């Protein structure tokens, strides 16, 4: 038997042994027995020295070829067996993926905060500043400079928490209008601001009244601001907060600090405008008050009403939240039942 034939035979026998091996230990034994230092291939190669110089490299190359092939076969077999072992283990590790996930501590922003943030972001994008004023105000800023002199009928003592005759809990965030107007330098640009915050009214708490609630006041003053601009701004606000399919309409109203004054209604959430008992069959729901800033307000703040003018609006985030989410009791916002607070989790 020639060396080559021996090698051929070794090759065939080796492949058969590899194929037969059933676990990693087998594979290892086969490897040692075939390719080890005392293995048959080494043995055969040792016999090469008896060959003539011409044959020797040929047989050497052949022997290497066979060794490589067996090595590859061993590797492949080992991988096959390893995979089988792994698969068996993984099959064993199967879990019920429908069991609940491990809870993660996570808090939610208050629903009113979410609405305020949304309003802030919208108006920041339109170049407004966000300003917050004191919650304990002077009568002067809360009323007088808003064109509500002391004996004004719209100014009912019943509605205001006074601390002294001149100091009170602000009933609206409008005082920031006056405070800002007084300071604004119109040579540096128009005044565009919103003022969010807590306000207070002397009310008994019930499902629709709260002695504490929120307001976002908006104000734009420049040389050429129109009522059409007010209408457009309120429409953008309604679309941002409620969605594009909501329309805005204006109705005449009365506020001492604006003239003309309007109430803005938006399409009823409940019926989409068809009419239902929520909207008293009008298809519309009153959401905010607005108007063109009264010349007296500008004058009192030292702004010339013949040159400058603009609009103001006041939004109630509590009312918005009640409408948007169907909250039926305003007190929910201030009692902080965790089951209430964690209902408003939609982000973005």
């Amino acid at each position: 038997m020639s060396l080559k034939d021996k090698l051929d035979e070794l090759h065939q026998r080796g492949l058969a042994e590899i194929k037969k091996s059933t676990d990693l230990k087998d594979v290892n034994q086969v490897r040692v027995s075939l390719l080890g230092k005392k293995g048959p291939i080494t043995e055969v190669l040792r016999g090469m020295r008896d060959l003539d110089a011409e044959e020797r490299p040929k047989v050497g190359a052949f022997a290497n070829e066979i060794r490589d092939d067996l090595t590859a076969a061993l590797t492949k077999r080992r991988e096959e067996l390893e995979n089988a072992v792994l698969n068996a283990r993984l099959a064993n590790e199967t879990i019920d993926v429908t069991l609940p996930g491990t809870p993660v501590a996570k808090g939610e922003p208050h629903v009113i905060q979410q609405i305020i943030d949304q309003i802030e972001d919208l108006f920041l994008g339109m170049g407004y500043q966000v300003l917050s004023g004191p919650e304990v105000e002077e009568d002067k800023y809360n009323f007088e400079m808003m064109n509500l002199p002391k004996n004004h009928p719209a100014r009912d003592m019943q509605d205001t928490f006074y601390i002294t005759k001149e100091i009170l809990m602000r009933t609206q965030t409008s005082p920031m209008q006056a405070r800002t107007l007084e300071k604004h330098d119109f040579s540096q640009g128009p005044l565009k601001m919103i003022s969010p915050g807590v306000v207070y009214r002397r009310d008994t708490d019930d499902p629709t009244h709260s002695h504490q609630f929120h307001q976002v006041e908006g104000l734009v003053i420049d040389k050429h601001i129109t009522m059409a601009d007010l209408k457009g701004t309120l429409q953008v606000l309604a679309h941002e907060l409620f969605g594009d399919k909501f329309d805005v309409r204006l109705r005449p109203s009365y506020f001492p600090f604006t003239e003309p004054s309007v109430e803005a209604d938006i399409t009823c959430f409940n019926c989409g405008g068809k009419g239902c008992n929520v909207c008293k069959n009008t298809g519309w729901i009153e959401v905010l008050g607005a108007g063109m800033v009264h010349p007296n307000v500008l004058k009192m703040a030292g702004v010339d009403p013949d040159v400058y003018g603009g609009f103001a609006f006041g939004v109630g985030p509590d009312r918005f939240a009640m409408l948007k989410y169907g909250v039926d009791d305003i007190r929910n916002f201030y009692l902080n039942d965790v089951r209430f607070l964690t209902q408003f989790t939609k982000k973005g």
Partner: protein
Amino acid sequence: MKISYNWIKEYLDLDVKPVDLAEKIERTSVEVDDVVTPSEGLKKIVVGHVLSVEAHPDSDHLHICQVDVGEDEPLQIVCGAPNIAKGQMVIVALPGSRIAGNVKIKKSKMRGIPSAGMICALQEIGFSDDVVPKDYVDGIYVLPADATPGDDVYDYLGMNDSLIDLDVTPNRGDMLSLNGTLRDLAAIYDKPVTLDQPEVKETGEAIADQLTIHADADLAPQYRMRLVKQVKITPSPMWLQIRLWNAGYRPINNVVDITNYIMLKYGQPLHAFDYDKFAGQDVYVRNAKAGEKLTTLDEGEHDLDDHDIVIADDQAPIALAGVMGGLTTSITDETTTVAIEAAVFEHDHIRKAAQRHNLHTDASQRFERGINRAGVQDALDAAAEMMTDLADGVVQTGTAVGSDNVPEPAVIPLSLTHVNAVLGTTLELAKVVHILESLGFTVATAGEDMTVTVPIRRNDIHIPADLLEEIARIYGYDELPTTLPTGRMTMGTLTSAQKLMRATRHSLEGLGLNQAISYALTTADKAKMFMMQPSAETDLAWPMSTDHAVLRMNVVTGLLDDIAYNTARKVKDVALYEQGRVFYREDGNDRPSEEEHIAGAITGTLMPAGWNQPAKDVDFYQIKGIVAAYLKDMAINGDVTYEANADMPEMHPGRTADILVHGHRIGFMGQVHPTIAKKFKIGATYVFELNLQAIIDMPKQENQYDVISRYPAITRDIAMLVPDEVTNDQIVALIEKRGGAFLQSVKLFDVYDGVKVPKGKKSLAYTLTYQDKHETLVDDAVTQAFEKVEKRLQDDLGAEIR
């Protein structure tokens, strides 16, 4: 004010349904509360003629009536009304009918006697108690004798009319009348309207010989009276009663009803006095004198003072001007001479008087808003005319006038450019002029400049902006273009304080706390708990309740209230934070200063027990973990340290720490004192409160890239026994100070205080991590440094290395 659709239609040719008319008013003029047609929802309610009335054999108050309802056979109806009588025309709810409140009437038996339907009181078919004529309040209503049995009752009672309830804003006093509403509608629909002109027949003696008025024109710019003699007090005719009850007024008698009717029509409150009850022939409009008293029509007794305006005769006040008449001179069935008062009182006085005496009447409401000073005589004449027609009265010749101040009409310049510049419109001059004229204003033009003269009745219009509103609303807000402000650009950015407040909220939410918004007005007790600095309390002058009477000086108590609310509702795991203001006041100042605070409170467990993890009750170290993580997020430039504080009365003395930055106290945290927790009815609760303003004001670290070393780190663990009073902070500080150049971090990994440790000692174990950023550390260098630390721990802190 409830205004009748039918009444409007008598004057204006409108082809619109009541709901559409109401919608138009709401869109153009004033708010509409609702539109009601009283007959709506009622069914099968007809006129019945009572043919006979017999006593019920088994009842002392029920009667068995045979009632003709226009059918072949009369119906037998058992009726319990005390005023039922044979021959009456009555309201019958037939079997199968529906009455007020959606109640169905069926055939039934009453004490054994079959009864086919029901004879109704007005209240039973939807009338409010307040408008039912006195005679019929406690019984059935009796219809006029000429009613036809079997007819629906609705038209007899005015119930097919529609009533539009206007919610008139304070500026639109003119809309509190039919005439004012008609004028607005005429402009809205662009239709002509002709209002009634009164025609008085003065057939009596001269009034001057019978009545003299002395009026202070400052108190009553207009004060007039007419005298009507020989009046016969009777019930008003049906049409007048219907007008009144549909407007929400109870019909009383012809004279009183006429005054209310004229008020509804003209907006001018009137008062009818019984002239014969006057002491003398002189009437005074003056301030009351201290000590004077007046009993008003509603039998209320009022002590007067010199703030009140009264109408008085020679002896005493006879009316609280503009609010309510006095009882002694009121109209009774015996009255024969009526003095009708038509006046305008100063609105501020009336407002205050109505408040002071808690008498808010329809008259005072109109005076407060201001009424048409130019229309006083018309209203007075119309009332006198009606007293002739409906009470056979003889109107005395002339009007007694105490004061006659009519202001000049407002004359307002207005330019077309201004109109379009403010409204954002491109209206033409003719259009603007037409709108103003349709409202009854007079417009003179010179080029694009207008001069607008406003009728006295529109006392709400003084300046160009007022005219803009008139133009805008009549033109229609829907017609305005929709644009956004243009002009110079502005930047919209949050200030760094606002950004930090947002970051604060996001950080705490990420740490598992829900945002709460609690009441800032609280009880005097709670307001001054958990104080972080001394302050006087700030009280409301007239709180609504003691629960919300004082401005808070801490945020924590609001959160404890919230936890109590949750606890009472069996919600045991609560984690809240609140960002809000506290109000500190210095003695001597009226006004407190406002400081932004941030507070948190946790109770129960932060992470509830699940199927794969046990619950872990909240503890000090959890609230501390939250505070530390939050403060790390805020990147304050300076060391944050925690010092035990045993002195806060509301906090657990052994589980409370002050929070310091650079040694400056910015807040506290720890466990609420068990006795306080008990007061709030809550379980073990851990809280923190921080001065957020201080955090805003402190300098911050900027984020900076730090090279991550490629060289391996070496760790060494050290366990030691130390005396109980040695704190972790001391040990860590010492290790950090003596750890050498390569010490990167010190991490506590075990604390043991159990039985295996000698009394008075505790066991602590730390992992020290060493690393060189520039080359591989050699073991020897670490060993050297580590041994040094061991020695210092033994020497300085008495540690026993284990």
